[in-house]
């Protein structure tokens, strides 16, 4: 079933179509929510809240652009709101205002699977994590991130570079650990 028909059926209130739309995107969207939260439970809460918004606002989808991208955007916004509401996340959201220019290392080849990479992203300090997700994965510009989070684009840029460096270090360490384990196994 094409997305347009699926959306129309959902708008008519057909439960089967709603279920179908959910199943089509739920796994991918849980992956999105997972990257912004610290636990699978929180990620599922965001997913649930996000899908309720999707169905309630489906009439605003104008069939321009991918339906998946539209839903993903809702999930990201829902996740940001979730983080804002939860004190435990807020306390972790620190953004330096210094304009640091860390050395950008060479791009390493990522030899991790998606889950391992997502888990590493989730271990970033939460401020870094959000900015890294928004910029590197979702594709927001630093200006947009600045507007979204109420910080300057310079802060967003420096935080991103810090997150990136940290993540690259962890990826390299993780890869070498895996190598060691592999050889140790032999």
């Amino acid at each position, binding site marked *: 079933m094409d997305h347009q028909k699926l959306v129309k059926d959902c708008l008519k209130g057909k439960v089967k179509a709603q279920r179908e739309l959910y199943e089509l995107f739920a*796994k991918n969207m849980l992956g999105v929510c*997972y*990257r912004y939260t610290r*636990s699978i439970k929180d990620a599922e*809460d965001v997913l649930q809240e996000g899908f309720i918004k999707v169905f309630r606002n489906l009439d605003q989808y104008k069939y321009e652009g991918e339906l998946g991208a539209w839903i993903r955007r809702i999930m990201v916004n829902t996740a940001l709101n979730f983080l804002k509401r939860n004190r435990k996340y807020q306390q972790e959201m*620190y953004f330096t*205002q210094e304009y640091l220019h860390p050395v950008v290392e060479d791009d390493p080849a990522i030899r991790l699977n998606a889950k391992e990479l997502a888990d590493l992203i989730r271990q970033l300090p939460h401020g870094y994590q959000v900015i890294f997700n928004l910029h590197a994965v979702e*594709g927001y510009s630093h200006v947009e991130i600045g507007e979204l989070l*109420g910080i300057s684009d310079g802060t967003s840029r420096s935080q991103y570079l*810090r997150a990136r460096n940290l993540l690259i270090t962890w990826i390299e360490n993780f890869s070498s650990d895996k190598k060691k384990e592999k050889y140790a196994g032999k």
Partner: protein
Amino acid sequence: MPANEFEKQVQEKMEDFRLNPSASVWKNVEDELREKKRKRVIFFLLIPAAAILLLIVSVYYFNHESKPDNHQVDSLPAGRQGRESIVKKHDPASNPEQGPDSHRVDSRESKVDSKNPASSIKHQASSIQHPASSTTDNINVAAIRPLAGRKKNLPVAENSNSDNSLKNKQDKVATTTGNFDVSITQPATQKKTEPKNDVVKVNSEPVATELKKATDNDQAGAASVNTDKPEAKNLAMTNEAKQAVAKNEPGKNKTRWGLDFSIGVSSIQSNPFPMLKLGGAMDAVYAPQNNPNGGSASGGGVAPPIPPSEVTGGLSFRIGYTREWQVSERSSFSGGVQYAYASTHVKIGSAVDSALRVSASYNNFTSMEVNKSYRAGDDDKYTNSFHYVAIPLGYHWQINKKIPVQLNFEVSLGYLLSSNALVYSSSNGGIYYQDDDAFNKMQFAIGTGLSYSFKTKKGADLVIGPQLSFNTNSLLANDHKQYLWFGGLNTRLFFPKKKK
């Protein structure tokens, strides 16, 4: 900018990243959706239920109120417009010489005047007895004036032919006694679970400012992809979609103001809900009287007064200020203030320049002098105008989420500022005169309608559609129930908000 290899790899990996949600997620989503639907159904069932209740209460109230008392004559059955039935009382007490020739007119609900029981007669038969007699000195014969040929069939002829007239009428006939007339206006008128904190503490550079604000926009916010960001074309939404989302965002544009204008036709009915056929159409029954100022006099051939002519609808319009409050995505309330003009037409005869005395039916039939009056007749067309100031309150419900068609319900409280409307009196051979006090100043109206909403080129919202409203209290201050109604086209123009 993350256009390098690392970001590309991250994006690709994350695109493929999928996790299986637990079954409870869908169950909760589904429950939430069903719950909302249920609430919506209950809410919108309440509206028609309330409307029906209001209708029933109003109908009961007006039906009850309009039962005639001893001073009130019955109205004729529905279907007759304008022309009156003239009923002359049968009065054996005051006319002892009345012989077997006198007519008796049947009446289902004839009333006897308590003030003058001697002049009353209880009608029981269902046919006319002794129809051949003609009117002589005293009018002691009940007669019903035919609908047509009012001017041509002068009283004697009419009375002599009353047999046929009466036979054709199975109407309720009212009798009245005493020296009073009945005035008629011619106006006629989330499930939220406490998240477990399994935070992994990472030693990082922590100098920082707290997150100032995260976005409040947790809806489908959208942004087009910039060239300086990673490839995320499939994440893009157009600005148009972004605006559409912003426009529909709850909490925005909650109130708006504009102009309210209606134009159409107004007329009067003898019951506030003519479609229910609870009462007659605008009709009037009156009794001739022994008025010292004219009309019937003892001892001679008496011409009954010329009955009032038919009231026809006239132009009506309303203009005012309105403010609308959005209470949910599809429903809103409105309130405002407006000037309302209503008119009706009536045929009148020649002007009478001399002062005449009439008895005001709205004021216990006290006699009053009128300086300017018109004979009843068909010579000229007169426009009865009514000027109101009104406070309308409305509820508007968009029937369909996608199609901007609204169902409107409105109540309105109006005050009659002025009127030139004529009041009919059967005294003096049937005259029309002006008397502001004959009208109820306060008017309560209920109305309904449909409207279609669209945007103008300049960004204003134009809401347009048919409208129907009825006044629920009588226009007249006397016992005659006459209700003003309006049907026409309503337009509301809401101006765009100025950009700051």
